[in-house]
């Protein structure tokens, strides 16, 4: 049962406000990256592909690996928008006593693969998980979300090659191609080459979409899920989407006043 895109748009709007709200309370969050990946996260959790209320260890379910673990606030924000977290709890993010840590951690809610965050490593974890699910004969899929910057890591391609070699079509990879990494625009930091071509040459099926068009993402996911080969959805996004002063920049921080005033102006 899928939510209408109309319902999703409202959820995304609410979640975007929550991400900015959290940035107002904790300048340590990765604001720009959480804003770029929001529609992708909504296309996964908002359609029931992934669930906020399924216990770890449940069989025959789908798994989520947020390899770009620094964008975890997109997940927290969507969880709150869908009623699984309170706004009070969001305000506490990044505090030592909060379970909403700034990268996925052992006690982070909703994340069944909490050992991501060191870039590139979530990709290997997802490939191992997909290999394991197939070996167990479980029908679940692994949804892997990576950034474009983290594809600089050699480990990423080491494990994508394994996914292709073993034909892991239970792995659906989504690249949040926001074109920015810590030191600036990705192409200036290190050219990525023909990203789609790099995946295709390994044996992946590639779908390219506007990563802020949730209907387009869902449609690409459906195709990816039915692919006989491992599939990747390259989602072209804008870092900092929704906050004009940081859009398409490496900027992450807003003053609390700026953040809180934005909260009400977004969508």
């Amino acid at each position, binding site marked *: 049962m899928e939510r209408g895109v109309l319902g999703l748009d409202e959820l995304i709007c609410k979640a975007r406000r929550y991400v900015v709200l959290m940035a107002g309370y904790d300048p340590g969050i990765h604001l720009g990256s959480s804003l770029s990946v929001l529609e992708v996260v909504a296309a996964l959790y908002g359609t029931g592909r992934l669930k906020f209320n399924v216990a770890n260890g449940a069989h025959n379910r789908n798994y989520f690996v947020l390899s770009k673990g620094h964008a975890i606030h997109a997940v927290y924000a969507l969880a709150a928008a869908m009623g699984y977290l309170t706004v009070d709890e969001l305000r506490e993010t990044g505090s030592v006593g909060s379970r909403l840590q700034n990268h996925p951690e*052992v006690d982070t809610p909703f994340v*069944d*693969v*909490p*050992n991501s*965050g*060191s870039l*590139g*490593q979530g*990709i*290997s*974890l*997802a*490939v*191992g*998980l*997909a*290999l*394991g*699910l197939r*070996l*167990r004969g479980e029908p679940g899929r692994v949804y892997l979300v990576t950034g474009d910057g983290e594809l600089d890591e*050699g*480990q990423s391609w*080491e*494990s994508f*090659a*394994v996914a292709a*070699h*073993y034909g892991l079509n239970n792995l659906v990879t989504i690249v949040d191609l926001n074109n920015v990494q810590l030191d600036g625009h990705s192409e200036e930091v290190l050219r990525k080459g023909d990203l789609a071509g790099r995946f295709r040459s390994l044996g992946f099926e590639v779908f390219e979409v506007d990563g802020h068009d949730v209907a387009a993402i869902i449609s690409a996911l459906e195709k990816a899920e039915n692919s006989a080969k491992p599939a990747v959805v390259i989602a072209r996004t804008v870092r900092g989407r929704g906050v004009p002063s940081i859009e398409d920049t490496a900027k992450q921080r807003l003053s609390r006043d700026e953040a809180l005033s934005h909260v009400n102006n977004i969508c």
Partner: protein
Amino acid sequence: MLDLESLTPREALGRALSDLGDLRKDVVVLVADTGETTRARLFAERYPERFFNVGIAEQSLVGIAAGLALAGFMPYALTFATFMTRAWEQARNSVDRLGLPVRLVGTHAGFADAYDGPSHQALEDIALFRVLPSFTVLAPADSCEVYRAATASAAVKGPVYIRVGRDFHIPTTCGLYDRFEVGKAYVVLEGNDVAIFTTGITLPLAVEAAQVLRDRGISAAVVHFPTVKPLDYAAVEKYASATGAVLTVEEHMVYGGFGSAVAEHLAQTRPTKMAIMGLKSYGRTAKSPQELYQLFGLTPENIAARAEELVKLR
């Protein structure tokens, strides 16, 4: 019956894994283009569906093993010990932080791969894996102990690093004890004047040194620690107290390894005269590991000499 003494350490490893495969359906084995050299092939022949080659890619090897552990499997990932340390940060972040039951097996450790020179000779692996809080670290002495340690590792709850050689070993432990227990030290010789603690392949060198010492009227205990972590603190304290002089011997850098583990504990509980024997530099290409033991002074004569000095210092 399996004649472990006649196997090389890596053959014993391959046999242990394939036998574990019979006992446990959750055991999977991964290699980084090292199926033949680590003898993981012996498992692959029996259980091809549970065997994965990830290519020459150690970071991916460790990460994928961690993913398989998340899916409920018990992965054994095998490659040369030196190259396993290339994935140290993956061992930290993908494995150790979650305490996943991943077993990393570093073969060709120490000078075992004399032929390929220092790039292939792991002398830092004990230190690097010992520092990770969840890891158990095993360094068996010979083929019998490799087989037993690899088998016993399946019962460990968190991650394990197992340090294995290649072909050279001096069979010593086959008749020494009946059951390998993780975390237990084994007393090989009793003695009152000095205690020689060993891990890994240095055990037979220490046994020979103790015989040399006996001829000089010095009574040396030899205690073998195939588990570096958790260290058998009771055995460390008992023999430190009984002799007042502890000499550790390892085929590893003297920095941060087995000797350091013993020293850390004794310094905080019962300061004891100590010496740490091992390596302080990289190796060389040679025709055999024994040639390197000679070149770098890991010999029974040198062990006896250091022990004798310690006895005088007591």
